[in-house]
């Protein structure tokens, strides 16, 4: 356990993107309890307390470690704790997408990108319990990781900094729900917009083919 903390601390110090070392550690120590912790914290619902909890866990971890490790722990609060993600996910957005797929019960790998997702987006009753999502994420990591990035990589700029994300969500927090619902709505809206654009392109192409047929006959 001590070497895990050393990995995290040294890696966060050295790397620019705090996301990467976390992914490495969780990947190399899949059974570490903090991996599960991150899965349980998969949703920044209670946002400020979530961050402090993670920090407390970090800080409580190296109590038994050597002092250099403890000293380096203090740097961790400075680096923004990355959004808790399954190791294969890219960002918060795709994390939500994984969750959406989880509601469909295993159709993550199947179907084309747009069509099946449309069906999922419409039919799923997006359950708001963290546990179901956690299970979905835990199960779908393998599928989601390989499936999502190619489809959503263009939409995902990069992992938003948690501070920025939380403030963004607090602006939108007119509703009593939280950033989870907003992200879901944005995702649905994005999908619907894409389909609308695809239909518009199809109409245009159909029209062009009619014109070509008329002009050639």
């Amino acid at each position: 356990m001590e070497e895990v903390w050393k990995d995290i601390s040294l890696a966060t110090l050295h790397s620019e993107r705090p996301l990467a070392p976390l992914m490495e550690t969780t990947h190399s120590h899949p059974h570490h309890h903090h991996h599960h912790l991150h899965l349980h914290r998969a949703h920044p619902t209670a946002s400020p307390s979530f961050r402090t909890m993670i920090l407390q866990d970090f800080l409580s971890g190296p109590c038994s470690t050597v002092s250099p490790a403890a000293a380096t722990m203090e740097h961790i609060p400075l680096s923004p704790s990355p959004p808790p993600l399954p190791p294969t996910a890219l960002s918060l957005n795709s994390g939500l997408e994984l969750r959406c797929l989880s509601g469909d019960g295993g159709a993550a790998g199947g179907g084309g990108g747009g069509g099946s997702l449309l069906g999922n987006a419409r039919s799923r009753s997006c359950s708001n319990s963290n546990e179901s999502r956690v299970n979905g994420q835990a199960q779908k990591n393998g599928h989601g990781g390989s499936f999502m990035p190619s489809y959503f990589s263009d939409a995902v700029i990069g992992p938003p900094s948690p501070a920025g994300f939380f403030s963004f969500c607090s602006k939108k927090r007119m509703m009593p729900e939280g950033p989870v619902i907003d992200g879901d709505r944005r995702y649905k809206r994005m999908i619907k917009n894409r389909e609308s654009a695809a239909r518009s392109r199809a109409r245009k192409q159909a029209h062009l083919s009619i014109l070509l047929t008329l002009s050639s006959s």
Partner: protein
Amino acid sequence: MSRDPLVVGRVVGDVLDPFIRSAFLRVIYNNREVTNGSELKPSAVVHQPRVDIPGRDMRTLYTLVMVDPDAPSPTNPTKREHLHWLVTDIPETTNSGFGNEIVGYESPRPTAGIHRFVFVLFRQEVRQIIDKPGWRQNFNTRDFAALYNLGPPVAAMYFNCQRENGCGGRRYIRLTGSK
């Protein structure tokens, strides 16, 4: 490169399976033949069209189905497909007026988005009794054809329609017989 508007417009896929055209179908509203894939206003399609089925053999009978796969809106087609018209026993060389109207023509009245209105023609093997569906919405052309052993469609065409004052979609060059 031109492709069939039925495929490009995703009628094949949403409503029909790929099929080989083996019959002819002409839809005529107000003495104007509708071009496949064109756009019409609701005011132009208020009354039922005359659907001509050219051919040679009057003994061949056809079933005509008209559905809206984009009900109530293309983004949320929960009532796909909405049945607008169902006519059976149409003899070849004649038109829809000579058939058996099982479900009367309902004027297209799209409220949201640009809907496709699809005409599908099936060739009947025999003169058959087709039961009137209990309701128009959530009709399924594929299931209907399977239920009555109509086989694959022999012809189909569609037009786009949005609400009368709608301004959606691109501004195209006008085609004859549309808008």
